[in-house]
Structures are given as structure tokens and as C-alpha cells.
């Protein structure tokens, strides 16, 4: 009988024999991975949501009106703006278009606009950025420009949003790390219990002259098996719950475009499986350590 088949036979034999412990460890892995998966899904969704909101940070550059800048000046400014690498896109809004927009906004009560003579509205550029955090720098460049009257970009809102999103990301990251540690402790404790029940067996193996690795392999195979199976079931549950919830949220949130497909299923699956396997193996290794010192 080859070594590997012996180890596999040992591992699966003892998983079957100690089925109560096997189930306890499976449930522990499963629950930890469901929570971890839930947090991952939440993190992916919220960070997609947050970056969508961040993308909405836009600079509006109002041009002078009295007199209006010439077409050459406008073209020159447009070319300059588009040459900046921070800028994703810029749209020119002419005086006429501005007026049309205003009329559109007030079409319910057009009497408000009745007093308007001519077109007092300024033309403007709407500039969106590659990285919204560069908003200050870009806005400052318009200072002193002959054709520019005013630059608006909701500075305070942008700042608040950025601090909030970066804090939210740090918090969630910390939460994931904490959760990982708790899961490892929980699982290595469950496995240690199962190993404790087999302390005598391990002692006998050592007295017969088994090396530590000879004793360890079957335990590690057990841990990996439990970790993998627990994680597989958790992946299924997390992904099914996620798609059910997406449907629900979509039905109830019609006023907002939530990027609900932000969760990269493949990475979530791989992360959960990898963490499950590592935790199972590490749990066995750590749990066994005390008993090998004979």
C-alpha cells in the first residue's frame, strides 16, 4: 500500500468514525465562510456603489457673459481642458442649451420665466475626471482664466464623500481581518477538540516510532477536506442568497441605479475556497502541535 493511499484511507476513515466532530467542524467552517462571504459581497457592492457616487463629482466651469467669450476663446479652452490627463471628458453647454435646460426644468410653471429677456445664462463646460480626488487641482487651473467667470464643484460635498468612502473601506477591511482571525481560532479549537479525543492514539503512534509528519498528514487531509466542503456549501449559499437579494433590491429601488452586479462571483468563490482549505489545514496543524511533543 502506497503512503498516499494509506494517508487518505486513514483520513477518511477517521472522518467517518468521528462523524460528530466532523459535522461540528464542517458547521463551524460553513458558518465562518458564510459570514466572510456575506461581508465580501457587501464590500464589493458598497465599494462599487461608492465609486459610482464618487464618479458623479463633476466640475462646472461658467464662462463670462458680458461680453460672452468668442468662439475662438471657447475652442481654445476646450482644447486645453481636453489636453489635461486628469480629465475623462468635458462637455460644452452653450447659452442656448442652458436656457433650454432651464425651460425644461420649469415646464410645469413657465410663468416664472416670462420676465426673461434675451439669454442672461452663461455658457459652461461640464468636466468629469478620471480620478475624482484631483478635483481641487483641476479646478484651481481655471483661476485667472480670461474667459472663466466661476468654477463650481461642490468642494465640501466632495471632501466629505472622500473621507467617508475611505473610512468605510478601512472599516470593512479591518472587519474582514478580524473575522478571519475569529474563524481560524474557532476552527482550530474545534479541530483541537477532535484531536484531543485521539490524544492516546497519537501517543501510541509516537511510541511505535512514527515521525511527526507521518502522524500529521492524515490530520491535515482531514482538515483540508472539512475546510473545502464547508466552503463549497458556503459558496453556494452566499451566491444564491446574493442573487435572491439582488432581485428584491432591484424591485424596491427604482429611483437609483445600484450597481448590483458588482460582485465578482469567481473571485468570491476562489477566496472562500482558498480560505476554507487554508483554515482547515492550519487548524489541524495548530491543533495537533501540543500532542506531538512526546
Amino acid at each position, binding site marked *: *500500500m502506497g*503512503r498516499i493511499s*494509506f494517508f487518505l484511507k486513514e483520513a477518511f*476513515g*477517521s472522518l467517518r*468514525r468521528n462523524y460528530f466532530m466532523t459535522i461540528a467542524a464542517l458547521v463551524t467552517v460553513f458558518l465562518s465562510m458564510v459570514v466572510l462571504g456575506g461581508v465580501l459581497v457587501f464590500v464589493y457592492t458598497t465599494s462599487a456603489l461608492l465609486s459610482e457616487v464618487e464618479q458623479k463629482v463633476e466640475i462646472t466651469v461658467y464662462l463670462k457673459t458680458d461680453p460672452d467669450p468668442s468662439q475662438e476663446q471657447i475652442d481654445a479652452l476646450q482644447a486645453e481642458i481636453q489636453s489635461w490627463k486628469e480629465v475623462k471628458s468635458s462637455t460644452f453647454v452653450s447659452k442656448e442649451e442652458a436656457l433650454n435646460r432651464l425651460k425644461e426644468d420649469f415646464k410645469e410653471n413657465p410663468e416664472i420665466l416670462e420676465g426673461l429677456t434675451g439669454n442672461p445664462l452663461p455658457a459652461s463646460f461640464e468636466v468629469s475626471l478620471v480620478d475624482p480626488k484631483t478635483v481641487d487641482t483641476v479646478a484651481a487651473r481655471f483661476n485667472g482664466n480670461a474667459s472663466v467667470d466661476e468654477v463650481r464643484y461642490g468642494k465640501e460635498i466632495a471632501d466629505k464623500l472622500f473621507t467617508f468612502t475611505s473610512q468605510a473601506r478601512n472599516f470593512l477591511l479591518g472587519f474582514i481581518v478580524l473575522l478571519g482571525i475569529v474563524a481560524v481560532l474557532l476552527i482550530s479549537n474545534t479541530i483541537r477538540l477532535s484531536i484531543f479525543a485521539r490524544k492516546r*492514539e497519537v*501517543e*501510541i*503512534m*509516537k*511510541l*511505535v*516510532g*512514527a*515521525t*511527526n509528519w*507521518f502522524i500529521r498528514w492524515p490530520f491535515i487531509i482531514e482538515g483540508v477536506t472539512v475546510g473545502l466542503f464547508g466552503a463549497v456549501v458556503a459558496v453556494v449559499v452566499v451566491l444564491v442568497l446574493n442573487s435572491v437579494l439582488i432581485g428584491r433590491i432591484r424591485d424596491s429601488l427604482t429611483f437609483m441605479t445600484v450597481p448590483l452586479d458588482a460582485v465578482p462571483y469567481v473571485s468570491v468563490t476562489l477566496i472562500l475556497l482558498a480560505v476554507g482549505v487554508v483554515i482547515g489545514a492550519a487548524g489541524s496543524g495548530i491543533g495537533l502541535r501540543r500532542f506531538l511533543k*512526546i
Partner: protein
Amino acid sequence: MIKFEDVTKIYPPSTVGLERVTLHIEKGEFVFLVGPSGSGKSTFIRLLIKELEPDRGRVSVGGRDLATLRRWKIPYLRRNIGCVFQDFKLLPNKTALENVMYALLVTGNANHDSKKKALEILSLVGLAHKEDSFPNQMSGGEQQRVSIARAFVNHPPLLIADEPTGNLDPETSMGIMQLLYRINKTGTTVLMATHDREMVDRMRRRVIALEEGKVVRDQKRGGYGED
């Protein structure tokens, strides 16, 4: 084969396990280690397989000073020392045959002959028909014979037995003794701790007597209690 030089073992905080023990056991000898309960017999044996470290003095086995033996090499030492215990120490979830084979598998040179070899040893101890029985399906005497088969399957140069007949009735004990005697005849050094007076008296072999951790008698062809 075995050398103890001025060996002292104190269990913390201050229980004497062995005290200043010096003795030699030659290759091929059959030696009884006798003494009342708590006299240090098991301590002696646990020092031999480096389950314990002496506080003072030197223990060597087969010319090898155990103090210089690295931790990771201990399993290789133990494969050269067959061990038999009062409580048999069989793996409860393995059959008689699997228990014997385990000792072959741990050495890493198991092959298709292993099963044949294990079966041969089992029939040597008279248990060929019990190969598929689990420990809890066998009598104490049978379990002890399985454990002797396991200890001997690698043909170790040294076999030690810590009160192997302690849990067995006199008749069964006699069978176990016979087995150890035969093993000794193959050239294997046998060290047996016991307080079975009748057995020791009958065998007329070397007797080392311990009391409170000290060697109080070492006789070439002794009996249990004579001076």
C-alpha cells in the same frame, strides 16, 4: 546494548524517579527489572526511549548517547526498540493485522511483502485466525500478543516490556513469557519490568532490583526476592 551511567531523574518538584543508577546490559541478554510499584521501573524504560530526559548522568542505547540524539531522530530510535506495555497500547480502530502493519508502515519501507510479513508474525504469536479482529474483540492475552507481534515485526535489536503480564492471569502470563523467551532466542535483547515473583523465580535470568529509584541488587541468575 544499554548503558546507564549515574543516571538521576527527578519529577518536578521533587519526586525521585531514579537515583544514581549505573548499569550495563549486554547484547542478547534477558533481563528482569523488578521492584515494588513506584520503585522506578517505568521511569527506567521511558528514559530508554527518550520519552524522558535524565536530570543527571548518561543513557546510551546501542552505543548511541541519547542526550546527543536530535528530537527529529527519536522516531528512528524507537523503531529499533520494540515496546510492550501493560495496557497493550493498540490502536483501537485498527484490526490486529493493521496494528502490526502500522509498525511496518511508519518505517517508510512498506511494500507488497508487508502484509505477508505481518501475517507471519501474527501466526508466530498464535493469532493468525484473529487478523481481522479489533482490540475490543480480543482477550487481554490476545491483545498483548498482538502488541508483541507489533513490537517484533521490525526485528528490533532490543525489546522492552513494561509489566506486560500485569493485567493477565498466571496461565496467559506464562504464554507471554514463553513468547518473549523465544524472541530473546533470536538474538534480541529483552528487558522486562515486572513484579511477577513466580515468573522471575522460575526463569533464573539476570535480575536487577530497584527500590525508591536505586538499584539495590543486580544478580546474574537471580530470583525475585532472594538476597
